[in-house]
């Protein structure tokens, strides 16, 4: 059977086998509602408590700091909308390359009297300190800057941002959805540096879709996004998705334990990949910054990203053009625009994001395929001209 090679791990990941195994009982015999007081319910509650402890341990947080949500998008919305609802409207600053599920709720807040500042980044996608300090001088109530970018993999230097932000009196949130499992994420250390809240999502780390978390310093006051029933300390109501939460817990543990081995391996694959890409004439985005080890983001001048990606798909490689989470809109990537990449080039963007099952052989095959595809497309365009 023809099995395409999956190179789109920043969009979502396959479930780790041990995660599936841990989830299955909660999809079958152990079906209780965790709020029920009988044994079916209590068993579910214990499983959730255990998962909460696992997630907390994976990121160096306390179990009581974990608020489970149904997704990373929800957790980001919960923080942005929930924290702002408890503050007097003022200035709100979010990274210009942040995920739409941070930027869009922030834009919504402008209807409630908030002023929105998108934090500018340099050509490599890093938030510039000078600009940032100028924003802080205007005393924002809330700052949100992602730890790792989903398109480029570029990392922000959070302590350098959070420390002055704390001095300026802002709540600081970071979207760590893409960072978890790929680089060390330590909430205690981040918290000490002034980060008050952090978003995680299970399906990016070998866990299931449908579970995520907001890690929250308890000093931050939040209005819930979803009311009714008082689950998750009143911050997120709704019957708990036990199976997905259990899966999330196990996935966190596996991802963090496996990282020491996986990260250098992925970094080596990515290095090989990017060497090959440069040889084909690709332009790499964000490669000058510190990055996640698994992500390569590039464009071939004169080639449309959509076309390339479609050709690659036909040849058996699943990659992304722009970001999958927002693939619903065909605009050129807002991340690349913020980095100052010309729109024509940005339209050519292709993202390869590697994961546990990928091999050196697959990378070699991919490079060959890409080269052949490029050659073929060149011939076609030559004929067209």
């Amino acid at each position: 059977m023809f099995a395409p090679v999956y190179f789109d791990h920043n969009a979502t990941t396959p479930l780790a086998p041990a995660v599936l195994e841990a989830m299955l009982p909660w999809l079958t015999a152990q079906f209780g509602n965790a709020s029920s007081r009988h044994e079916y319910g209590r068993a579910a509650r214990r499983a959730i408590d255990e998962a909460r402890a696992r997630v907390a341990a994976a990121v160096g947080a306390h179990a009581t700091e974990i608020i489970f949500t149904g997704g990373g998008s929800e957790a980001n919305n919960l923080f942005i909308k929930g924290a702002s609802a408890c503050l007097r409207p003022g200035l709100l600053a979010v990274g210009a390359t942040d995920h739409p599920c941070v930027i869009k709720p922030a834009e919504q807040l402008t209807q409630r009297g908030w002023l929105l500042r998108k934090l500018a980044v340099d050509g490599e996608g890093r938030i510039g300190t000078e600009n940032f300090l100028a924003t802080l001088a205007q005393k924002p109530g809330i700052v949100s800057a992602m730890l790792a970018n989903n398109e480029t993999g570029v990392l922000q230097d959070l302590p350098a941002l959070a420390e002055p932000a704390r001095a300026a009196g802002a709540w600081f949130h970071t979207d760590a959805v893409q960072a978890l499992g790929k680089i060390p994420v330590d909430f205690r250390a981040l918290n000490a540096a002034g980060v008050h809240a952090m978003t995680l999502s299970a399906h990016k780390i070998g866990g299931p879709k449908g579970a995520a978390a907001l890690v929250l310093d308890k000093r931050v006051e939040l209005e819930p996004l979803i009311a009714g029933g008082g689950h998750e300390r009143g911050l997120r109501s709704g019957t708990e998705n036990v199976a997905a939460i259990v899966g999330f817990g196990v996935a966190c543990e596996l991802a963090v334990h496996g990282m020491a081995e996986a990260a250098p391996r992925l970094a080596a694959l990515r290095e090989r990949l990017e060497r090959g890409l440069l040889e084909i004439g690709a332009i790499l985005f964000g490669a000058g910054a510190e990055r996640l080890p698994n992500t390569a983001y590039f464009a071939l001048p004169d080639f449309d990203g959509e076309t390339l990606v479609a050709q690659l798909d036909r040849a058996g490689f699943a990659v992304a053009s722009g970001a999958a989470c927002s693939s619903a809109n065909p605009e050129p990537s807002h991340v690349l625009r913020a980095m100052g990449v010309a729109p024509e080039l940005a339209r050519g963007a292709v993202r390869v994001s590697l994961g546990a099952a990928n091999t050196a052989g697959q990378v070699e095959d991919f490079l060959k395929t890409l080269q052949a595809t490029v050659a073929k497309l060149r011939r076609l365009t030559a004929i067209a001209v």
Partner: protein
Amino acid sequence: MLNLPIYLDYSATTPVDPRVAEKMIPYLVEKFGNPASRSHAFGWVAEAAVEEAREEVAKLVNADPKEIVWTSGATESNNLAIKGATHFYSGKGKHLITVKTEHKAVLDTCRELERQGFEVTYLDVKEDGLLDLEAFKAALRPDTILVSVMFVNNEIGVIQPVAEIGQICRDKGIIFHVDAAQATGKVTIDLSTLKVDLMSFCAHKTYGPKGIGALYIRRKPRVRLEAQMHGGGHERGFRSGTLATHQIVGMGEAFRIAREEMDAENAHIRKLRDRLLKGLSDIDQVFVNGDMEQRVPHNLNISFAYIEGESMLMAIKDLAVSSGSACTSASLEPSYVLRALGREDELAHSSIRFTIGRFNTEEEIDYAVKLLHEKIGKLRELSPLWEMVQDGVDLSTVQWAAH
């Protein structure tokens, strides 16, 4: 062989039907793609499964698939419907109407809107748990923009007159939301005739997985909402966030089964419910809460007078049942739903909810009846209230040293 404890709490949540689980698993394993991924087959396969499930959900309630938006559950659906519509139509008025026996997901959402300056009328119900239509009409105001009434009550199983309420709302141009979390697979829902604008669903009360639900948003006449979660623009902008394919597939399959098997299943469940009721009919001072006619066959909510609910639960721990509502957690309050029926406190404190489902058997019901007979005798021996009543004391005349 009896498997203990016997699960009689199907309104708290249901087991996932094995057929549903089987259909879900491939979407956890090889078909793991993100349905929003437009650039490869992993994404397309997931997206196709999501759309197929959307059709199944729509079919159960006779709606158009385009009218179905995925959420994480009925709690989120209720929040999205009520806050989303209220905010969108806030220019037209600031008054909402709901009912005191609604689920917390509706009541707490309404409280939040009150804090934002909206006005909410919480209607009483009659002693049988049903809404009084005259009282409802009287509560309508020129600035009423939204009415929210549940289809089937989660504690007492009564079916509210949604068709009549819907007609009244439609005539007046008021948005009508219905929480149908407890209704799917239990009563026929035909949105082509019901004048309902928004309807909340969840999978885990209908043999699907937890963590997935849907909101029906009528297209003709078109109902508008303000989204509550923003981001990638999923679900046509109504609700952003990666779709949990396996859960959606599970909900679709669960709703397909519900559509095909509802009639036969209800007959089976009604038989069991009647058997349980009959089995308890020779016990003194036992009261059914809520109307017996306008009621789903799955639910039997009973007050065993002069026995406190929690000690009762402890005595019958071989039965997994609930006292009060399980969806709301560990509070020691007596059920606000039973209070709303005007039940005396000692009866409200003494209620047990039995909810019967797909996998219960006659043998299980018989076991339950036998166990209840034994334990009720023992607990009444322990009860000072029972003793007083036996001595002819009228409890309502007693001066209690309340603490």
